[in-house]
């Protein structure tokens, strides 16, 4: 097992990983940018090291600085968290070349799933239904129009190297195609370094259902059940829960099996999430796979009792999986609200000093955050400042518990999306579970 791990991330996920390392008796090294000098993750780690200036590209995305930091700190592994370098196969490779274990999947698996087109092709080949759409990248406008005629409107245009809900454009009319292709190409090039685009059928009334899986690279892959992440805003997840109100035991087994089949085939090592869309008739379609720890992993932890981050670290450290599929039993219901520092109306990130920060507490309430009274929210990084997760015996109780916890949560000095969370969670539609990926539109 590792003796010292460098955590190549910031914010709540850096703290989550540092907590897991501490509990496993492994020393932790925090890296930070000059903007994060006083960040909580630097205080909780055993050691810390400044790796660059505020902008991510100079620090948290600065692979040489991170590897150099790991070397001078004597870390034997790097945990990339999510975002930043977590899905960069090149980074994973450079780590291994430098003799530092990358706590994540094999580089080739990251690469396979990182290119959404290749992933579609692979999954289709092993006989799992993918979203209707193309298996080739869009050549030009005419090509796109031909595909559109083929699969029918509405369509969604995605970046092949995108993912995580970024770089998505929806097309309702054929004459939008030329323009949107242009914009999407430019955006994809800028955001992901590749202008490669592809097209899928766009479903208006579907649920986002994803399966958490863990593989040990020794042929063992297990599924930890589903998360429903249909409540999204601008294709970003907003509220996640497990289990899904739309998934019964039989369907769960089928989706679990599909996710396991996809990952077992490549002898997947590490944690990952296979994302599906589920339609009203109970049909599910592979959308993409994230080859990393997911923001919303805590809801699965709450219902399964399994510490996903500890499992991830243990597996990277060469341990065989301690779990088998029959150990996995979902109990109760968990919900996560992503608390963002943003204006709930305009979605504009809200920066400034948090004057008072009092997180909720009490039974079955979990807060994964990194703010404190006096913390300054900087404009350099994403707006997630805390994840609020609750568990209860059933969904209705979990909703009431979440509302109670949201009520208690005091964050003064900046704007947050807490009011919007309350609005959604106290709505009748949410209570009834009549949700889809378009659900949030009526609340904003």
């Amino acid at each position, binding site marked *: 097992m590792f003796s010292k791990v460098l955590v190549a991330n910031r914010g709540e996920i850096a703290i989550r990983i540092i907590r897991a390392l501490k509990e496993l008796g492994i020393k932790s090294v925090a890296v930070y940018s000059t903007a994060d000098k006083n960040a909580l993750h630097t205080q909780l780690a055993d050691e810390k090291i400044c*790796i660059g200036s505020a902008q991510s590209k100079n620090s948290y995305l600065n692979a040489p*600085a991170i590897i*150099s*930091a790991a070397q001078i*700190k004597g870390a034997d592994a790097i945990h990339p968290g999510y975002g930043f370098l977590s899905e960069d196969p090149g980074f994973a490779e450079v780590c291994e070349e430098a003799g530092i274990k990358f706590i994540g999947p094999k580089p080739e698996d990251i690469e396979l799933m990182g290119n959404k087109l290749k992933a579609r092709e692979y999954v289709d080949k092993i006989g799992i239904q993918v979203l209707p759409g193309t298996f080739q990248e869009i050549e030009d406008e005419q090509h796109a129009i031909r595909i559109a005629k083929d699969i029918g409107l509405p369509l969604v245009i995605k970046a092949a190297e995108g993912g995580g809900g970024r770089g998505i454009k929806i097309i309702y009319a054929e004459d939008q195609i030329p323009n949107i292709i242009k914009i999407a190409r430019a955006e994809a090039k800028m955001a992901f370094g590749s202008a490669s685009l592809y097209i899928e059928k766009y479903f208006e009334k579907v649920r986002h259902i994803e399966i958490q899986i863990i593989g040990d690279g020794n042929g063992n892959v297990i599924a930890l059940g589903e998360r429903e992440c249909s409540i999204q805003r601008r294709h970003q997840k907003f509220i996640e829960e497990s289990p899904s109100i739309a998934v019964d035991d039989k369907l769960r087994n089928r989706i679990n099996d599909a996710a396991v089949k996809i990952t077992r085939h490549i002898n997947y090592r590490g944690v990952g999430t296979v994302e599906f869309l589920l339609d009203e008739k109970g049909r599910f379609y592979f959308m993409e796979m994230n080859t990393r720890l997911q923001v919303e992993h805590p809801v699965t932890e709450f219902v399964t009792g399994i510490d996903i981050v500890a499992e991830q670290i243990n597996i990277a450290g060469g341990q065989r999986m301690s779990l088998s599929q029959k150990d996995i039993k979902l109990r109760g219901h968990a919900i996560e609200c992503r608390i963002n520092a943003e204006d709930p109306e305009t979605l504009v990130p809200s920066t400034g000093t948090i004057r008072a920060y009092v997180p909720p507490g009490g039974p079955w309430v979990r807060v994964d955050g990194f703010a404190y*009274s006096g913390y300054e929210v900087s404009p350099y990084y994403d707006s997630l400042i805390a994840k609020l997760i609750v568990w209860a015996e059933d969904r209705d109780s979990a909703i009431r518990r979440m509302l109670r916890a949201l009520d208690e949560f005091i964050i*003064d000095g900046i704007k947050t999306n807490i009011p919007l969370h309350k609005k959604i969670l106290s709505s009748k539609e949410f209570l009834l579970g009549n949700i889809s990926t378009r659900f949030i539109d009526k609340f904003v």
Partner: protein
Amino acid sequence: MDVNDVKELLELIEGKDIIEIEYSHGDKKIRIVRSSSGRVKKAQEVQQARPAEVQPEAEVDTTAEKLLVSVNSPFVGTFYCAPSPSEKPFVEIGSRVKKGQTIGIVEAMKLMNAIEADADGSVKQILKKDGEPVEFGEPLFIIDPEG
């Protein structure tokens, strides 16, 4: 009295309903004006204390009469004071340097990054030992431009 005093005063009134502070020294004078609305600050505003004590940044004394120049590491890596273990150090304390002259090396991922003097002057301090790890932004040398 220097810039730090002003900074301290600014910190003092942060979160308070003070709208004016005057503070002289020659023959003394203090003047504090409070917002007439007289809003009493909430405790939470006062409690801006950080969860744990914040390590003071390595800082160069800029308040001395002479302005000294700090050369900070632009990389995280290992500091070397000489081109190779068998060679003499680039500079020693008292060495005269020219702006742009290589005065040390920071190695990161087997790449040797030259550290250059930021100003003409003399080397007043060498803050890292040969082979010592350095963080991004850490001061390596202090140069006295007038020395």
